[in-house]
């Protein structure tokens, strides 16, 4: 199978869906000729014109709000938010308007829009361009949240998101745009709420999102060499969450580590760990561990930044302890 980059995969998904559905359009800062700073959208404006690949002023709440209005009245806007950190700028439009409109209208109004944005530290971009804010969005009922872990997922999830009748936020890892993965030439969609078992194992389950899937896979490799069989699961969407798949794996292995690049406290890892604890308690042979980003603003210096995010070595070390029955965080 051919291999393409995550960036190309997103570009293909957008182009295919825009060809398929004339009500779709992209809006955001420097999305047209510039193709975004990450060049993910390069070439789209040539095919679809400036009416459907719309450069906006630097006014995130404004164009986000307009996307909500367009979505409510029959269009399928795809909003490009240059950095995930800018979600804070559009909170009212995303959380008070887009997320609640369907419910508040008693099901009469839909808001089918996609918010494309990114996450991920270690790009030396410091605290306002490095955050992974998926937990904030996942907390609000009415928003779906997809977290592709490779080019394959990025394409399949984007196509599903564009066809979904709800506001969907897709977080791409900005460090993975140039990572290649096998992506079929023929069309495919990845359904929301269906986890992917990336690697089967019997001793411990590593549940990981986005780029943390790679981290977990590397950890699993290291563990395999030591005779520990780790299962790696990628939920692919955290809302909806394929809880059954996670529970099934944990009931089998009796141990789990949840890894996500958002801050560890009150985060995605906490939510998933808590559900495992509630629903697989009597199958647990060890406490479920969370591994998120350190609870500090992302620092600039490489010497500091690199230690704030989970690493394969850290995941493997924790997995070893759990499998050995070591007391972790016990009084």
């Amino acid at each position: 199978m051919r291999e393409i980059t995550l960036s190309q995969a997103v570009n293909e998904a957008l182009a295919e869906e825009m060809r398929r559905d004339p009500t779709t359009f992209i809006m955001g800062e420097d999305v047209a000729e510039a193709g975004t700073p990450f060049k993910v959208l390069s070439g789209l404006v040539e095919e679809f014109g400036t009416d459907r690949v719309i450069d906006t002023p630097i006014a995130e709440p404004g164009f986000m709000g307009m996307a909500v209005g367009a979505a409510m009245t029959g269009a399928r806007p795809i909003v490009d938010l240059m950095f995930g950190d800018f979600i804070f700028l559009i909170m009212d439009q995303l959380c008070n308007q887009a997320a609640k409109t369907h419910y508040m209208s008693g099901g009469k109004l839909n808001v089918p829009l996609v918010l494309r944005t990114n996450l991920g530290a270690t790009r030396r971009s410091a605290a306002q361009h490095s955050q992974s804010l998926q937990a904030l969005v996942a907390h609000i009922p009415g928003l779906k949240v997809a977290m592709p872990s490779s080019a394959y997922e990025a394409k399949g999830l984007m196509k599903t998101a564009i066809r979904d009748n709800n506001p969907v936020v897709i977080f791409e890892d900005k460090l993975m745009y140039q990572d290649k993965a096998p992506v079929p030439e023929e069309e495919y969609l990845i359904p929301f709420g269906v986890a992917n078992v990336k690697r089967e194992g019997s001793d411990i389950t590593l549940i990981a999102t986005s780029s943390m899937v790679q981290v977990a896979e590397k950890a699993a490799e290291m563990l395999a060499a030591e005779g520990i069989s780790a299962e790696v699961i990628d939920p692919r969407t955290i809302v909806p969450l394929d809880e059954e798949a996670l529970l099934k794996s944990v009931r089998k292995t009796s141990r789990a580590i949840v890894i996500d690049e958002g801050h560890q406290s009150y985060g995605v890892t906490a939510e998933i760990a808590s559900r495992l604890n509630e629903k697989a308690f009597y199958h647990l042979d060890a406490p479920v561990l969370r591994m998120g980003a350190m609870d500090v603003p992302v620092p600039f210096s490489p010497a500091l930044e690199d230690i704030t995010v989970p690493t394969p070595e850290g995941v493997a070390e924790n997995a070893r302890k759990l499998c050995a029955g070591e007391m972790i965080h016990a009084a």
Partner: protein
Amino acid sequence: MPHDVTMPQLGMAQDAGKIVSWLKAPGDPVAKGDALFEVETDKATMEVEAQADGFLTGVVAGEGEDVPVGSVIARISESADDDTPAAPAPTAEAAPADDLPEGKTVTMPQLGMAQDTGLLVSWQKAPGDAVAADDVLFEVETDKSTMEVPAGLDGFLAATLAQAGEEVPVGDPVAIISAAKPDAPVARSVAEAASAPAPAAAAPAPAKTVTAPKAPAPAPKPQVAVSSTDRILASPKARRLAAEQGLDLTRLAKAGHPQPYHVKDIEVLRALPSEAPTAAAAASARRLVAEVAEDGLPGFQRWMSEAHGVNDADAILAGLAGASLAAGATVAIERAGLTRSFATPAGRTLSGVAETEDAPDLILRDLRGSPLRSVEMGAGPEPVLTLTNSGAGLTITLECDPASLSPQAAIQLLTDFAGRVEQPLRHLL
């Protein structure tokens, strides 16, 4: 139809309003939108407009009076001659209760915005007293202040249904006012009223939740003292497996095995020498032992796999054991620390054996391959068949509570099962 004039809910946290002045006199014609009376709340005075055309009649609240929000203070009638006093809003026809005098009930008024009950501070009239509509009947305390509640109509105080100091839910009856002087005025408390048939109270507004006064919190449950040294640290799964297999984790602790315990420690626990059964336990348990010269299971499993595509050794074992019981039993197979339960169908078809979550009727503990040769574990809630190696053959032990299997049934079960294990093909005949 006459239109009630009520004390409006004005401010966001307002309980009552004081009538500063009436801007129309009884009998005056009024038009919708006319200023009718002036109310003072908090610090300001405002005019309240008439909501209908007609004539002002039935004025029951005078100038200077504090009136609870929602109380009817007058009426706009089609005729100026209508001289019946307006009924207070929170009153309703009292249902003729057995022991209560007839009359109109006065209810605890809705005062604050988030108020469920009012504390009755004091009665200003005694049962039997004559009362006028604007006489203060009782005092109520809410979140912020104490206020006087007028009787609302002329008559006699026939019954008081709450005592000073009691909390009364909003809308619940507080008093009954009768037209005629009552023969036997009643005075009782809310607590007493609770056991008596209650007079019909005004229906609460649909959006309001009227909650009863809170019952005193139950006394805290005595804590069972647990010494920290008694607590065994074990994973939830290890605890569950131990419980399912009738194993006691405290034996591991007594043996000095280091905590916390995980699933792998269950194997250690199982391998501990069994404690001498107490006399009582020995007497109360049945233990039968059978020897078979040959383990027919491995060959049978191969045959089942090749000839019938049935690969699950546990399911086959469960089917053989289940067939030795009455039809349709659930058999749990325990092997290497794992437990799987199977529903075995009536008849002898092994392909119909299916995994289940149901509690087992019979446990089959497969210790072939372990160094154990003989077991004596005592009876659990279900009969337990244990397979252990014995040379080229097997030892099969049945342990059960006498209550679960009669001697005949136990002998039959073990004999039957031993035969099937030695020559499984017989099972299919």
